[in-house]
């Protein structure tokens, strides 16, 4: 247009594209690794409903609002919903997945520290969405 040189713009675009490629490749690689579920993961069935969480262990025991797990073990959550879409979230362990009626979504994690962690709903689900909370209690059975 106005006869200025355009190489600085090309260099700049090159840098931006290179950064984006790096972010994309890294994200792809990490996601690939974290999605790999260990074979010995214990299954926990998670059901969201307005406005509480129910958990069912492999042995059939059920808990409401509280979830007791053991430190160091791997767990695979099978998440669904009875009514509207919720989102199952343990923020401290970056566990986040929607509870969708008519579907079962799975995600796995392994608690590394004994203690209590917040469980919350991260998808708007109506009146008591703000208080659709629970507690994850990680126990150290080995100690």
């Amino acid at each position, binding site marked *: 247009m106005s006869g200025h040189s355009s190489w600085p713009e090309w260099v700049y675009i090159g840098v931006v594209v290179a950064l984006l490629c790096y972010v*994309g490749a890294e994200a792809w690689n990490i996601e690939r690794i974290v999605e790999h579920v260990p074979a010995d993961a214990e299954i926990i069935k998670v059901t969201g409903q307005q406005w509480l969480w129910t958990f069912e262990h492999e042995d059939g025991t059920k808990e409401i609002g509280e979830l007791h797990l053991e430190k160091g073990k791997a767990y695979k959550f099978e998440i669904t919903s009875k009514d509207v879409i919720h989102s199952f979230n343990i923020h401290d362990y970056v566990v986040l997945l929607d509870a969708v009626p008519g*579907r079962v979504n799975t995600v796995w994690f392994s608690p590394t520290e004994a203690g209590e962690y917040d469980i919350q709903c991260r998808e708007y689900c109506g009146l008591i969405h703000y208080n659709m909370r629970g507690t994850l209690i990680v126990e150290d059975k080995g100690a």
Partner: protein
Amino acid sequence: MVLELHKPRPIWQIMFSTHHTDVGLLYLITSLAFMFMGGALALILRLELFAPGTQVIADSMTYNRIFTVHGTTLIFLFILPSASAFGNYLVPIMVRYKDMAYPKLNAIAFWMIPPAGALIWLGFADFTWYAYPTYSVISAPGPAADMWIFGLKILGVSSILGSINFIVTIMKCKHPDLPLSKMPLLAWAYLTSSLITVVAVPTFAAALLMLLTDRLGASGFFNPLMGGDPIAYQHLFWFTFHPEVYILVIPAIGFMYEIFPRFSRKPIFSHGSGVTAFVLLALVGFASWAHHMYATGMSFTEKTVFMVGTLAAVPASAMHTFNFLATMWGGRIKFATPIMWAVGGIALFFSAGAGGVVNSAMPLDFITHDSYWVVGHFHLFVMGTILFGTVGFVYYMFPYITGRMYNEMWGKVHFILSFVGTVMVFFTQHILGLFGMPRRIYDYPPIPEWVQMNIIISIGAFIIGISMAIFLANLIYSSAKGKPADMDDPFGLGGKYYYPYQAKNPHH
């Protein structure tokens, strides 16, 4: 220019007019009114969140209704109409035609907005600005929800009609001496954003109808109990609304393409780069919609595809930023109010984009999704970039529209307070999201970090509130009593060279 309201006219003459500047004025006044109304709702929300426990809102349902109407109002009743306002003023002038291609259609598109706004405000629905099923089908209380659906339906039709009008005005009514390649970048902004509208909005229009019949029990598109799939709605919704974010941002970028060269007293660095970036964004913008849905249980492959599609759209935005900075570089810049807003806007645009890249990277989105991070992210765009660009342009156009000058000092105070407030509110919200606070919650447990950050955010919001009160006062006072503007050079920049599109409208 031909925009000023030469002599006072009775209001009904403007209301029943189909002339593009009159329709533009109607759009502008309506959109600013909704901006103040939607902003007021945000202040109520921030009062409530100032501390844990109930503050000013008695129950969560009211809170949920307020944030729903807040978001709906500011996106559909402020940003879209304010873009149409300036498009109406300037597109015909920029393509050197006497009016919009279809003046009556233009007035109709505007007059669909007040009834739609009334439906949304009188209904006061609670299902958030995206109305996901199954909540919206089986749980959201009517008639509010149904009124919202009808309101959005009307707004969708209105924006499709408006966009067709811009496209035809530009493609068919452009002066034969003016090649597309020489058309001002703001007109290019309207061309590209209108094309995106025409392609993107119909899916949402369809989804709204399906939602309505689902609510009536006549169908079960999104209801798993009737064999439907709620996730299908999310695809239809985001196929419209990811491109929609570009519909919203492109006009604001266009405003900055007017402001930067003018106040830098230098031609735009690269017209070609601006055009390329607009067109690129319009195309690539369609490849990213499901980045809003990583957490719905998509497969690894699907997530990867949409991550790549999202990242691919970033260079186009980066090109605009470069173009702005390179335009200012070495210019004799006059820091009047409009360019201050534009400079603030690109600073926030850049920060917002960086946060967007974080959201797009799949593993990181599981930290940020539906937390306050996302609220901070998109507000840096809708407020930090789009509102800043728009408000800067309101100041810029003020003398051309009213024939008077706004108060420069208060314009700058408005900017400084808004900028400080915006940084306080939306940067803090990013961090709050990293600490795990979900969005759309009426109350929260007294986790110390959450409490502290919410206080900072609420204070920032009130600083913005004060700045907007100053804005309102400045607008009202100056349009009645401001000192008459020098219509040839209201900002004292000297030299007509800096007003490239000002070639006289041949029909006036």
